[in-house]
């Protein structure tokens, strides 16, 4: 078993959001998507605020200085920064839209709500406009808002924790460690998208198995150059090497209430501890260095008193 904690508080971030009179919605942020799903969660946050489908939101990221600044993606700080900035900008934009539309519905702005592609008087579907009819009331002036990450509070927080459990088989004659099952339980506050969140954890577990059992840069001390800088010699796990993975995202109202917290790095912290503890449990000796390669496992067994004891 292994445990980890991490901060993950969102970095400074600014989002510029536009609702055009034709009904289109554009989110602009000088952030980036490392493949972790930044675009996806931005569309979800804005879409949920306006109660519009995600494909109705255009996401523009990556072009500083054209887009307002967001922090670098590091330290698992992106999701908290960009989601809170976008939520803030979207909520302000919606309030401005309500103010423009309220007279047409014969109501106060505060009495309006967005419901499934419509703007209506709260609880009264007969007094409604479609999203396009509503945005047409803007005339020739788009709604432009800028939202900033407000810092720890209702939208974001910091501090996550996770527990990982590894079940391994060690061949005590060859020192080869095989993964049987690997289970991760992870909290990260409010989960915006469960699939991409789980994927972050799965990815961390795969990388965790790789660095616990195989990955190592081999440098020749005399030459001062790496000898295994290719996919033939640099060992990475294949599908048959990782065993069965289970991920439990810890989701409950208390976690939701904490707001959004970063998840990229935390689950890659404890695999070596979990796998190392499992190996030690299996053979009765500590393998003091990662990766737990056959030579090191056999050396640990021998130090303990040989294969038979």
């Amino acid at each position, binding site marked *: 078993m292994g445990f980890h904690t991490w901060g993950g508080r969102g970095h400074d971030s600014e989002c510029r959001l536009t609702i055009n009179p034709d009904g289109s919605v554009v989110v602009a942020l000088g952030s980036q998507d490392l493949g972790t799903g930044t675009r996806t969660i931005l569309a979800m946050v804005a879409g949920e605020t306006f109660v519009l489908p995600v494909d109705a939101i255009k996401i523009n990221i990556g072009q500083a200085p054209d887009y307002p600044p967001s922090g670098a993606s590091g330290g698992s700080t992106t999701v908290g920064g960009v989601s809170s900035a976008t939520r803030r900008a979207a909520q302000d934009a919606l309030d401005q839209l309500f103010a423009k539309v309220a007279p047409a519905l014969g109501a106060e702005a505060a009495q309006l709500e967005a419901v499934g592609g419509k703007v209506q008087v709260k609880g009264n579907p007969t007094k409604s406009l479609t999203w396009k009819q509503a945005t047409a009331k803007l005339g020739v002036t788009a709604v432009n808002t800028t939202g900033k990450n407000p810092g720890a509070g209702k939208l974001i927080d910091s501090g996550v924790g996770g527990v990982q459990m590894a079940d391994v088989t060690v061949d005590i*004659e*060859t*020192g*080869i460690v095989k993964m049987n099952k690997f289970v991760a339980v992870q909290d990260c506050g409010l989960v915006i998208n469960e699939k991409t969140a789980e994927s972050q954890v799965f990815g961390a577990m795969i990388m965790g198995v790789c660095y616990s*059992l*195989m990955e190592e840069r*081999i*440098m*020749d*001390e*005399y*030459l001062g*150059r790496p*000898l*295994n800088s*290719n996919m*033939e*010699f640099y*060992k*990475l*796990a*294949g*599908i*048959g*090497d990782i065993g069965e993975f289970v991920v439990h995202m810890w989701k409950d109202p208390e976690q939701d209430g904490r707001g959004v917290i970063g998840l990229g790095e935390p689950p890659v912290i404890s695999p070596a501890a979990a796998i190392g503890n499992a190996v030690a449990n299996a053979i009765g000796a500590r393998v003091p260095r990662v990766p737990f*390669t*056959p*030579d090191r496992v*056999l*050396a640990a067994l021998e130090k303990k008193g040989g294969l038979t004891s």
Partner: protein
Amino acid sequence: MKAFEYASPTTKEQAVSLLGNQWGETEILAGGTDLLSLMKEYLSTPKRVVNVKEIKEFQGIRYSPGAGLRLGALVTLEELMDHAAVKKEYPALAQAAEGVRSQQIRNSGTVGGDLCQRPRCWYFRNGFGYFPKGEGGEDLVINGENQYHAILGNSGPAYFVNPSSLAPALIALNAKIRLFGAQGWREVEAEQFFVTPKSEGEREYVLKPREILGEILVPPAKGIKSATYEVRQKEALDWPLAAASVALKINGTGVKEARLVLGHVAPVPWRCQEAETVLAGKSGEESIAEAAQVALKGAKPLSKNGYKVQLARVALKRAILQAAQGGA
């Protein structure tokens, strides 16, 4: 990759006439799984590449209980592994092919290419040749990262291990390798095919620059049980840390005759003749452990590969058990 001339002859005679007199001038292309990486890394810079895949005579598997097995050099590892008679009669060979854990490499890699692939020593693959030396003449393998290097036959100057997956199995099964050159065919015992180079200009086999490995003959395996066991860290594509192929003639409960060959432990596939005598005429697991001890008795590990002695013993022991329990 350096520019080269490409030839694709359809007969073996044409092919031989296209080959150069010196190693490296020309290279033979079959599956290309090794040659292309060597060329991309500028480790091989031939003036001409001779594709032999169009030579029909070098293709195909033939088997008959009386004559045994004939493998064309162009048979792919996948064809070998899937062949019913190979699986039934020569499991050591099918299991060795299965040890190449990449579907892509098994699909295009050939039997001839597996035998003729160049050393996988990471100094060799980084351009330091067979006998990597530092500026002051220091031996880089002896003083450096030798965890995957030879533990047997390593009195120098070569310390790499023979990388062939099939060679130990072919030697255990007493195969012959047929080479075609300007003077026609010649035949060598699989065991005699591999040599330890003494200078950089040599190769790791007796094949000459103007010869082509054309086919392999394996005698009938009647009454022989065979198996291959590889100690590999990964299930995915990975070089074995040690491997063993064995062929046993079993008489009642005892082993009448044994051929035991280790792979990935020496610059050539390593036949364990003394261990064969230990095993022959005995029965029971004790003789297996004894044979494994004897097989590795002469091992002289380098600074970082002592663990391979244990792995080679285990590979041999498990291959013997696997052959005795299953096999043909």
